[in-house]
């Protein structure tokens, strides 16, 4: 039995860093303000009973980031590089969603249509990025720089207007609460996305193929894997993630502002992947790590807001904490820590031996 748990721990050792960082933030808040994590039940303005509190704010606010981090993990693993155009692509996807909704009355059908349309568009742009990376062998960051630069202009062209609005209770149901469900819908969307992705991993060999391509592309090819296809696929899956994130972000406010929608989120998404213990040079990966990383980042942001740190300074504080997390998670420090751990253990055993 003891052996069993041991094996499980070594298998999930990658998750220690993000879990530790979340724990640290929680601990810090517990000391700072014990009521920080209290959850309350209130009635919102639409008349439903809902949950509120900082914990909900963190889980809710990190939704887009968590979803983007999932896709980013795949791209990182397969290509050994990152997509920096996810914010811009989410803005494009959100604009397509808004465009479809504004074409007529907002009904469940048009919402479904809009979602499908923005998924298709985002996948097409993802395929564009993926083709540059896989077929033309351009570095992911350079390849996605194209869309990063022009994506928000493209988003603007789609609707023309600066901040088009889409008002409907149905949109509110996506962006905040479904009447009768006390949990914010974005949290539910993250869960559904995670389940779908888990099913994809369960019913395809995506995980094995992606890791094989990321670790040793030549060997993967000699084992019959279409490496170009796998890289392309990772970008298209990230495209879908961008579409989902874009739809959530639009629905939260019933409006889209191309310039600010999920601005700078690409860096947070890459960071989430790194905090999650995934190598940015590709290869082995754990999506759960990246999702935890996303929540860690959001928890940090909300904590800083709660402390009323001026938001102009938030980025600087964030940077400091992030440097700490990344350094702790670096192979050098990890090796030193495990050495230390070994020594402590040996010391203990030595003492026990002496006692015996």
């Amino acid at each position, binding site marked *: 039995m003891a052996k069993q748990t041991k094996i499980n721990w070594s298998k999930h050792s990658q998750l220690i860093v993000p879990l530790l960082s979340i724990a640290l933030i929680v601990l810090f808040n517990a000391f700072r303000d014990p009521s920080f994590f209290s959850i309350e039940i209130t*009635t919102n*303005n639409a008349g439903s009973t809902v949950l509120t509190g900082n914990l909900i704010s963190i889980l809710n606010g990190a939704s887009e980031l968590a979803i983007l981090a999932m896709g980013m993990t795949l791209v990182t693993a397969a290509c050994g590089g990152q997509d920096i155009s996810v914010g811009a692509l989410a803005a494009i996807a959100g604009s397509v969603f808004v465009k479809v909704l504004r074409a007529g009355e907002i009904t469940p059908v048009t919402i479904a249509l809009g979602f499908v349309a923005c998924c298709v568009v985002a996948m097409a742009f993802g395929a564009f990025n993926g083709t540059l990376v896989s077929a033309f062998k351009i570095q992911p960051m350079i390849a996605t720089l194209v869309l990063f630069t022009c994506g928000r202009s493209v988003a603007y062209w789609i609707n023309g207007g*600066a*901040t088009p609005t889409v008002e409907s209770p149905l949109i509110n149901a996506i962006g905040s609460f479904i009447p009768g469900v006390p949990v914010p819908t974005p949290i539910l969307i993250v869960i559904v996305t995670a389940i779908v992705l888990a099913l994809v991993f369960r019913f395809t060999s995506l995980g094995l193929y992606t890791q094989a391509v990321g670790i040793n592309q030549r060997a993967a090819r000699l084992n019959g894997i279409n490496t170009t296809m796998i890289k392309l696929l990772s970008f298209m899956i990230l495209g879908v993630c961008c579409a989902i994130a874009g739809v959530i972000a639009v629905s939260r406010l019933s*409006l889209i502002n191309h*310039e*600010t*929608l999920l601005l700078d989120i690409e860096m947070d998404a890459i960071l989430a992947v790194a905090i999650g213990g995934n190598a940015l040079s590709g290869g082995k990966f754990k999506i759960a790590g990246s999702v935890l990383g996303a929540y860690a980042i959001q928890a940090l942001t909300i904590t800083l807001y709660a402390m009323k740190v*001026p*938001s102009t300074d938030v980025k600087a504080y964030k940077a400091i904490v992030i440097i700490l997390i990344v350094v702790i998670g670096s192979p050098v420090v990890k090796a030193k820590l495990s050495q230390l751990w070994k020594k402590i253990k040996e010391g203990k055993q030595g003492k026990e031996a002496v006692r015996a």
Partner: protein
Amino acid sequence: MKKFAALLLAMLLVLTMTVGSAMAEVTVGIVNNPPSESGYREANVKDFEAVFSAENGYTAKTYYSLKNDEQLAAAQQFITDGVDYLLISAAETTGWDAVLTSAQENGIPVFLFDRMIACDESLYEAAVVSDMANQGKLAVEWLIAQNLEAYNIIHIQGAMGSDAQIGRTGALDAQVAANDNWKLVVQQTATWDEAEAKKITESVINSKEAFNIIYAENDGMAKGAVAALDEAGISHGVNGDVIVMGFDCNRWALRELLAGNWNYDGQCSPFQAQVISDLIQKLEAGEALNLESKKIISEEKGFDAKTLTQEDIDTYGLGE
């Protein structure tokens, strides 16, 4: 051979440019923020495109960017290209002296619009601007007139250092400093980002601190804050617990006022092109401008939800 071809090409270019500018009567170089920035900017850009059109005898060269350094480079390029007039709405108020001096040395009159630049008055002909400080003053005066016992304000600022942020923050800061019953529960910038405004508001709600006013420096951020109120079940608007204030008068925002969901929206007029065009025509005719003040302020209002009419929305609303 290659060098020769390049030289020929350059000469051709210069030639076409001279011919081009000889054909149109007046060439203006317009440096502005991109229309995608906000509903305000969209209306502003449209206004300038309509007034400085070929039908009105203008050739307009435009450059839109949110970044000051890019704007500076573009303005310098327009000077090099030899435009007749330079029209600028700056992303930031500082850093423009060198470029404006260069324009003056080249005999190119400069008009500022929408936003002031922190520089010597002699460097430009006139500045047609919204008085952001006045907008702030109007809003704060309206707020004083509400006669509340306590003013606990969530103040969500625009991008720090922008003219709008400085102007709209100034009056409020002064009032808070001078009155004990005025208090800023939080003062944070959301850099014009709606989602960020929501997070800031959410954080205050979660901290259980009492507040009764949202003072957001544009409509989008007000909307973000309201989304947070809605989720927490806090009533707002005309008959609500929290007063909601925004700026810019987007049409959708005025509709919120009309529905009683918000309380106040400050106007920020984007229509400056005609005033500038009139001044340019005067200069073209050889007349002196003889302005009382180089700062020409657009007339602006503040709208109260209780007195707003559909007609107001049709007249003053921006966008659709």
